[in-house]
């Protein structure tokens, strides 16, 4: 196990360096002058320009600039936003919980619905139930989620008036964040109306963001189940006269879920990509919307540091999933 861990960690190092090089190069590859882009100013005097050049360290050779950048990152200094002049980290930490809350709800919804649907389709293989479920899953998998979100808004918000169009909680509720998760915070304060308000705001974005992972999980669970159902130990269990629910639940499902766990891990990157679109449509105050807005506003400090931190988060989650996977499945540990 230790060897597996060390091997896996060794693979992370080049990616880690690569991510910092990407973030470092981003600003330098932008069209136009990177110094002016970072300062967010145009038409500065030559003296001011020289001043900025020294301030950002552009007067030094490239390799030295890179090591300075690494030094800043290691000190936890991610620069300050051009448009708000607040430290990047302060803004990031204020918005990140919103994205995590939405993503967690989406992945939970995808698992709670997707896995049972996959099992159901597998146990009814070839029937119209199977075909109907898998047809629906393929539609979900092919869905342009930005359009799907707009359709749901037209139906549930503007026509039926059941859910709010955009935002995270009704404006009359305001409290100091504890965890940053609106649903949990409102419960911690014992504020039930706020909790239900947060829930009403959460439901449509969650459905939209969960759509593709849900479809992927349903398809993956079905094929994993079908593969396992043909194995000898399942046939043995069946031949022993165990009830079908016991065969499926106890013998097949446990082994079928192993590849499904990896799929869930791989969906993290997909979720963060989907969050960009979902948060934009629903004006959800999270990292995805912040990144898009920062691109529009040419706030390249935020884009650069956001790129870096999001990649680090995705990498960390994938690493944790890989290690968990090795804990569940001893075969992986032996192979590597």
């Amino acid at each position, binding site marked *: 196990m230790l060897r597996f861990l060390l091997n896996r960690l060794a693979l992370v190092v080049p990616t880690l360096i690569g991510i910092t090089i990407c973030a470092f190069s981003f600003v330098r590859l932008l069209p136009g002058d990177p110094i002016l882009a970072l300062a967010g100013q145009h038409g500065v005097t030559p003296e001011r320009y020289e001043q900025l050049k020294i301030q950002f360290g552009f007067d030094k050779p490239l390799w030295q600039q890179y090591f300075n950048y690494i030094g800043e990152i290691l000190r936890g200094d991610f620069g300050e936003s051009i448009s708000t002049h607040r430290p990047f980290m302060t803004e990031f930490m204020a918005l990140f919980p919103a994205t995590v809350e939405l993503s967690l709800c989406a992945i939970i919804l995808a698992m709670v619905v997707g896995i049972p649907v996959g099992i159901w389709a597998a146990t009814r293989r070839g029937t119209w139930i199977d075909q109907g479920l898998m047809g629906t899953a393929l539609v979900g998998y092919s869905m342009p989620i930005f359009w799907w979100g707009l359709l749901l808004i037209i139906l549930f918000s503007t026509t039926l008036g059941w859910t709010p169009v955009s935002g995270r909680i009704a404006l009359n509720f305001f409290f100091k964040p504890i965890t940053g998760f609106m649903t949990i915070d409102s419960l911690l304060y014992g504020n039930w109306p706020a909790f239900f308000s947060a829930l009403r705001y959460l439901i449509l974005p969650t459905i939209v963001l969960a759509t593709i992972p849900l479809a992927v999980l349903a398809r993956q669970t079905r094929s994993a189940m079908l593969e396992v159902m043909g194995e000898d130990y399942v046939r043995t269990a069946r031949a022993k006269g165990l009830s079908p629910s016991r065969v499926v639940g106890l013998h097949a499902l446990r082994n079928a879920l192993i590849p499904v766990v990896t799929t869930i891990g791989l969906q993290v990157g997909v979720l*963060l990509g989907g969050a960009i679109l979902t948060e934009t449509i629903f004006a959800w105050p999270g990292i995805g919307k912040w990144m898009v807005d920062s691109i529009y506003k040419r706030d390249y400090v935020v884009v650069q540091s956001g790129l870096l931190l999001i990649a680090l988060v995705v990498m960390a989650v994938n690493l944790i999933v890989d290690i968990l996977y090795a804990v569940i499945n001893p075969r992986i540990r032996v192979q590597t």
Partner: protein
Amino acid sequence: MTTEIAPVSAAANTSRFAALREFWHYFSQSRGAVLGLIVFSLLVLIALFAPWIAPHDPIEQYKEFFLEPPAFSGGQPQFWLGTDPVGRDILSRLIHGARFSLLIGAVVVVLALAGGIILGLLAGYFRGWVDVVIMRVMDLILAFPYLLLALVLVTILGPGLFNAMFAIAITLLPFFARLTRGAVMAEKNREYVVSARLAGASHIRLMVVTILPNCLAPLIVQATLCFSDAILGAAALGFLGLGAQPPTPEWGTMLASAREFIQRAPWVVTFPGLCILVTVLAINLIGDGLRDALDPKLKRS
């Protein structure tokens, strides 16, 4: 001499024909795949003949007909699916949009496939440091959520349809490179490759002529799936205002400008998205059918 060669090539032709027939046999087992193929063929025809099918010019603005509802719900009879906020005929724009979506899919897949095959061949054939460098760069691309990476690349390159296609092709590159590398490594030490090498074939000939044709099946399936990913990705970039620029009748871009009108004119939003969904769904149906038909493991069961 020619009479001696002819039967051989004829035999090769029949075996190729037989392989094709066998493939079609398995592919046509899936009704979904055949349906997908029919829809996709229709889309290709619509795209090819767009200027002749479309009732109006896609960028002509009819000043007296802003946000006209579709003909079937009380609109003007000459605008079947209504008009958009600046008075352009939506049906004509959708028909021309088919050209852009298919073009996007084709260009992105060709770019990603060509790049991925070259990188994968080099990595799998030479191994060593070439392999390490190429595969670590591919890992790096996969470390970023693909839409974020595409957004950042477009920020660097500037918004526009071609830059969006290029950015999406880069995000899809690792899938083809990994697949090719794996297949090359599996084939490299087979007897036919060794004998070709002993016969004096050059590295390039070994890679491209000897090994590559035997790695094609998984690449074809992946290319189909990436075709739909590319259309979705480009539409998403268009929706965010960083893909094709107005007045280009690209479906995602059409949605972007329609967002403010969801209350007043839902048809402006409904139809472009429906077109994206139907196109992507048709291609995914074909992809599923191809995978089942080309995967020998599934054939036996």
